[in-house]
């Protein structure tokens, strides 16, 4: 027994192990740190992400991939804002599709009816979404939990009804067609590649903004409001002001996303902004990981990609989609963004231990 112990090293590294370790190492490089949400300042890894974003369309030069990533980028802008409201301030909103819709319709109406330049419409859309968020946020943010969820859900439905029932303004059920490409300073974003850089550029800017927000006093105040409103107000944080602020901010993000969506899809119709879309966005935030800014982006890419892959299977796509979502929610309840690395480290540890046990056996 003793001779065996000296003879057999407990866990010797074999060449074959590299084969297992390499993909794990690669995932751990891409995936956010397990506790990244604790350390909120910018790190070297962010530069890696930025480089990956810049290079991705050149590595996969398939236009279909570019188009998917454009959509993912737009959804990521929307879910980034929603994640500030849900993941950080701890509130619920099922009405963000409406702010997205307000952004899209403002752009659609301004550019097709009044020939307003797209760049100007881009800003007007965001501001109008924010203004409406301010007006409805004042009364409904006094509610909490399920009541807030219902109120925002109601707002979303009201928006849809208004859109459907006012054909003169919004084109009714048919919607608005022929929205011109987004253009600024004479540069027209008419290819998928250009649109990719447009959306991901906007996303990067908003991400930096959100990240700064999260690591400042505002971010702390939001987390404080989520954990205990009494304690937050006991140190002088105005709970209602912070909630309203972040609600308006997330609507601003949604407005921008909606405006880009309208320019890129060149249509706006009410079917795109229904309850299903709201659920999709909320799923992106939850799957990506609450209280983590990398999460919603990961969630947006994942769900957009998933929908595209599953669309091959036609009638089976919806059941498959829901099964995958349920499995993801079971195995990653905190979201991919927050737990992926924990799981990977756990797996590596488990694998090493197993190897050790097997190596120790005679």
């Amino acid at each position, binding site marked *: 027994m003793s001779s065996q112990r000296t003879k057999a090293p407990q866990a010797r590294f074999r060449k074959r192990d590299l084969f297992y370790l390499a993909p794990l190492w690669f995932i751990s490089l891409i995936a956010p740190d397990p506790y990244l949400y*604790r*350390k909120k300042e910018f790190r070297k890894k962010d530069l890696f992400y930025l480089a990956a974003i810049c290079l991705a369309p050149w590595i996969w030069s398939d236009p279909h991939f570019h188009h998917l990533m454009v959509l993912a980028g737009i959804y990521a802008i929307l879910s980034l804002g929603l994640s500030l409201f849900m993941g950080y301030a701890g509130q619920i909103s099922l009405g963000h599709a409406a702010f997205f819709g307000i952004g899209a319709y403002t752009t659609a109406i301004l550019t097709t009816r009044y020939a307003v330049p797209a760049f100007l419409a881009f800003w007007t859309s965001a501001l109008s979404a924010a203004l409406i968020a301010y007006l409805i946020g004042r009364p409904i943010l006094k509610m909490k939990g399920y009541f807030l969820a219902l109120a925002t859900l109601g707002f979303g439905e009201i928006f849809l009804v208004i859109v459907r029932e006012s054909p003169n303004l919004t084109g009714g059920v048919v919607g608005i067609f022929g929205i011109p490409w987004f253009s600024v300073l004479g540069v027209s974003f008419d290819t998928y590649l250009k649109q990719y850089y447009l959306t991901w550029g906007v996303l990067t800017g908003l991400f930096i*903004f*959100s990240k*700064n*927000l999260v*690591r*400042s*006093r*505002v*971010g*702390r*105040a939001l*987390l*404080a409001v*989520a*954990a*205990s409103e*009494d*304690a*937050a*107000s*006991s*140190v*002088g*944080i*105005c*709970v209602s002001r912070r909630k309203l*602020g*972040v609600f308006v*901010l997330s609507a601003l993000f949604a407005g921008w996303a909606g405006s880009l969506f309208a320019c890129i899809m060149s249509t706006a119709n009410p079917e795109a902004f229904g309850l299903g879309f709201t659920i999709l966005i909320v799923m992106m935030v939850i799957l990506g990981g609450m*209280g983590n800014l990398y999460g919603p982006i990961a969630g947006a890419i994942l769900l957009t990609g998933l929908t595209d892959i599953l669309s091959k299977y036609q009638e089976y796509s919806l059941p498959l989609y829901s099964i995958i979502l349920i499995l993801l929610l079971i195995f990653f309840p905190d979201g991919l963004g927050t737990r992926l690395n924990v799981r990977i480290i756990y797996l590596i540890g488990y694998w090493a231990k197993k190897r050790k046990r097997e190596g120790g056996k005679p």
Partner: protein
Amino acid sequence: MLLLSIEEIVKEYDGVRALNRVSLKVDQGRIKGLIGPNGAGKSTLFHLISGMEKPNSGKIYFKGKNITAMESHERAVLGIGRTFQTLQIWGNMTVVENVMAGMDRRLKGGLFSCGLWLPRVRRSEEEALKEAKEILDSLGLLGKWESMASQLPYGKQKLLELGRALSMKPDLLLLDEPASGLTLTEIDQLSQLILKVRQGGVTIFIVEHHMGMVMEIADEIVVLHNGERIAEGTPDFVRKDPQVVEAYLTRHHEEPSRR
């Protein structure tokens, strides 16, 4: 100098009078204790002072200003800090962030200037971090400054909550049963800490069931019983008051005499 004065305050819950025309005054730079049997209305009084609840009638003055109608965050900005009977730290933040969030009223920057990370925001954040670390150092929590607040043991969480209240540099600090759930050594440390805080010029108003501690550190003690003030004075005076003895004896609860 008079810091806080409560006049004829009444608070009813569904017709039950939790506080019946209670008046009291807290002078600057003192440690005032508030004791009473369970259900005497102590925590209610604290909620009324910090603004978590509003009184049915009566007035509250702080620094000579009528604050009866103010919201609790406005009162906090004026300089009323508090801790809670049931621990209320923010478990979703790190230890140092808890303290920095406590400083919120002294920091600069709105939604947009924070998002753009303007130089003045950066400067104020850096200063806040430095100060928060100093506060944690004085509490002996600096070793854990980066761990999540929810992962601290209970005693340390209590300390952290106190640290958070201190970080807002209050003029009046309301402590709602700070010693509950602590070990005897921890209670001793807490008493020393409270005395040190008072030396820094903070007025302290403390509700405590642990008689040994409150008798030791308080300059004056108020006794509430069934929503009414039944005695007020130095610890020795209160201990001998026949009404106080009766209130505690009839309830068979704590005895206000010894540890």
